[in-house]
């Protein structure tokens, strides 16, 4: 009961925040009914996916302060589990997705246990290494299509197939992902108020003090890492059904790991809304800069330069990200 109460307890946020969130949610809820382009829809789906990735990363990276740059390996495990099970044995998404989470979490325990003996930069480097090693394994593993990857042929399924999560119309994908997104917010909100959440914040502030208070630092980290993994793995499974083509280079690359961490950090690591703000800024920015300034305007590459500039400016002005900026302004006003 307390879990549910915690999940729905947003009372520590000011009213203005909740109003903005409410408007945002209404917009998300009715977005498909508004006139919009397919490109805007694809951008919104990307936004929701990266918000969820970021939320997962935020538990260990933001609240726990452990910079994890290997999240893509779990995207891969989730995506491959769903794709392999669907293509080889016609297993519904709703079975393969939890299976993917199970594999991911097991793998996260296996590598998390030794990895959390490391701290700081060494931990970050080790996460990159494990992710790249797993990617290399998938690139030569014939059972999962090796470097060629796997392709789900949408034409083999009905236009609306809820069991396999194959749809012709992106609106379905959108609403399913939105449901995951709302659930994700509630889980992170619970995590914030939970014992584990408090333990982790304490670890972030000072590991030695945390230990002296009787917190099993290693265990808390491994547990939170598994939670972060579950988030990423679910979206990975979704990715497989949405994109219908997965290959190691695409789902397990270092670029993806960095992007996940970047969104959360730019939005504001260690806050509930940070990753959502990060994804909400970076994803549309990237898509639309490219659309307006890229190939069609004949200015190839300019969009990437601007995009990088904006990221550099934000991180130079306020290292705690956009959320840190908001809090700074607030502190000044009161």
């Amino acid at each position, binding site marked *: 009961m307390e879990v549910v109460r915690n999940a729905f307890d947003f009372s520590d946020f000011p009213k203005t925040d909740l109003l903005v969130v409410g408007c945002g949610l209404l*917009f998300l809820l009715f977005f498909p009914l508004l006139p919009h382009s397919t490109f805007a829809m694809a951008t919104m789906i990307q936004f929701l996916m990266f918000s969820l990735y970021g939320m997962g990363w935020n538990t260990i990276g933001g609240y726990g302060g452990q910079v994890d740059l290997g999240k893509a390996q779990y995207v891969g495990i989730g995506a491959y589990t769903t794709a392999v099970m669907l293509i080889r044995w016609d297993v519904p998404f709703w079975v393969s997705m939890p299976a993917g989470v199970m594999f991911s979490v097991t793998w996260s325990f296996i590598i998390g246990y030794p990895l959390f003996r490391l701290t700081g930069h060494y931990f970050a480097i080790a996460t990159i290494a494990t992710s790249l090693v797993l990617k290399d394994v998938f690139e030569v593993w014939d059972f999962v299509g090796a470097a060629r990857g796997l392709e789900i*042929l949408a034409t083999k399924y009905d236009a609306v197939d809820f069991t396999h999560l194959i749809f*012709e119309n992106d609106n379905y994908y959108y609403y399913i992902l939105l449901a995951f997104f709302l659930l994700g917010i509630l889980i992170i909100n619970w995590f914030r108020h939970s014992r584990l959440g408090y333990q982790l914040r304490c670890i972030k502030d000072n590991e030695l003090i945390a230990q002296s208070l009787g917190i099993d630092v290693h265990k808390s980290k491994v547990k939170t890492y598994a939670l972060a993994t579950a988030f990423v793995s679910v979206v990975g499974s979704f990715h497989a059904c949405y994109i219908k083509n997965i290959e190691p280079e695409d789902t397990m690359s270092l670029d993806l790991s960095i992007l996940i961490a970047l969104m959360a950090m730019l939005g504001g690591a260690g806050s509930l809304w940070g990753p959502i703000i990060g994804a909400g800024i970076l994803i549309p920015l990237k898509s639309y800069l490219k659309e307006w300034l890229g190939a069609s305007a004949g200015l190839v590459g300019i969009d990437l330069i601007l995009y990088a500039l904006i990221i550099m400016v934000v991180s130079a002005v306020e290292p705690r990200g956009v959320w840190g900026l908001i809090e700074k302004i607030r502190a000044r006003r009161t």
Partner: protein
Amino acid sequence: MMKRFSMGLAWCAALMLIAGGWLVPSPAAAVKEVKIGVIYPLTGGAAAAGRELRAGAELAAQIANEVMDGIDMDMAKKAGIQSLGGAKIKLIFKDHEGNPTLGADLAKKLILDDKVDGILGCYHSSVTKTVSAVCEQYGVPMINGSSTSPALTKRGFKWFWRTTPHDKWFTKDLFELLDGLAAGKVRGVSGVKKDDLQRLAAACERTEWGAHVADLIKTLAEQYGYDLKKSILYAAKSADLSSEVRSLKAARPDVMLFASYTSDAILMVKTLKAQKAKPKLIWGQDAGFEKPEFRQTLGDNIVGILTRTVFLPKVADIKPVAGQVNQLYKAKTGHDLGGASARAFTGVQTWVYALEKAGSVDHAAIQKACNTIEIPGEQLVVPWAGIKFASTGDETGQNVLGSGLIGQYQKGKDGKIGLEIVYPFDLATADMIYPFPGW
């Protein structure tokens, strides 16, 4: 209370309108034109190829849309698509960065927002795979000019046609050349024994395309009786290939085979030079090995390197029409036509023929036209017998009249480095340099 509620509602509605406003696409202009969505890698590691592809496609569209004297091509003699009342071809370019996921999103955007009549692209086989799957799902015709992974036409798609020959043919050409060397068929080379070329080593980039090439090399090496000592896959984005080259060298190969995109091809050759690798032959599977950047960056170092291709400027000596188009292309870009640009050109040209034959932009009509189209070889810039797609069998959508070339970088009389044809043997334009002269 009620008033406040309705105020709140009004605010929300206003917010959504503002947020929604910029998402709405601008309405399409009602001019008589046929819109083709073109998805190429305009930024990223293959940006160099993207520039060439774009220039090739644009030139073809220009020739189709205007009456151009001095080019012996049907589409140069008329302005626009005649069966559609002179409708002009409009190419809408999108940049996929070599990313299959982005490619699929762009394809959806082109189909649903821009309402294109068809798609052309995408160079990277991995991107072509996802884009063609989207086209298949929405029933929109897609013509592919330059992706050579054999798997693409093995899926039985009804909306996908490929003009270029694929890697199986190209890789076969290589082994024919090796056999030809031993049999004394190669112009300017004699006294080579098959044992001299026995040991092979291959390094291919590890996405859809390279991984397939690696498989093909392995199967064909067995078939032709060569010994593949080492075969590795590497990441095209690698900043360092020294350990890969070391492991290739350790196999002491007579022939080194590569499937590389642009930046990695350049790095590969630099590393080979740095480590003083000296095989008797170096062969590249097109792509990076025939880009202008490859030549410009590496200069004299590439003399003697072989690459398979579908187009060389030397083709102009055999085909006048290729020379005419090449002149226009060179005036526009400063470069000669290459494998990428010539095939992009041919892709747009195929679209013109398909539309001319269909007489409509109805997708089903275009599908029917593509399945029955026949473009004679004399109309093309590439040295093929023509374009005709298989409409059944295990290569559905594949052009059955294509063929490849193998070129070798040689220094011309003017001191410039260019590609000379060494295979097919009857088209050879120069004596082959054998063995590879070293660095």
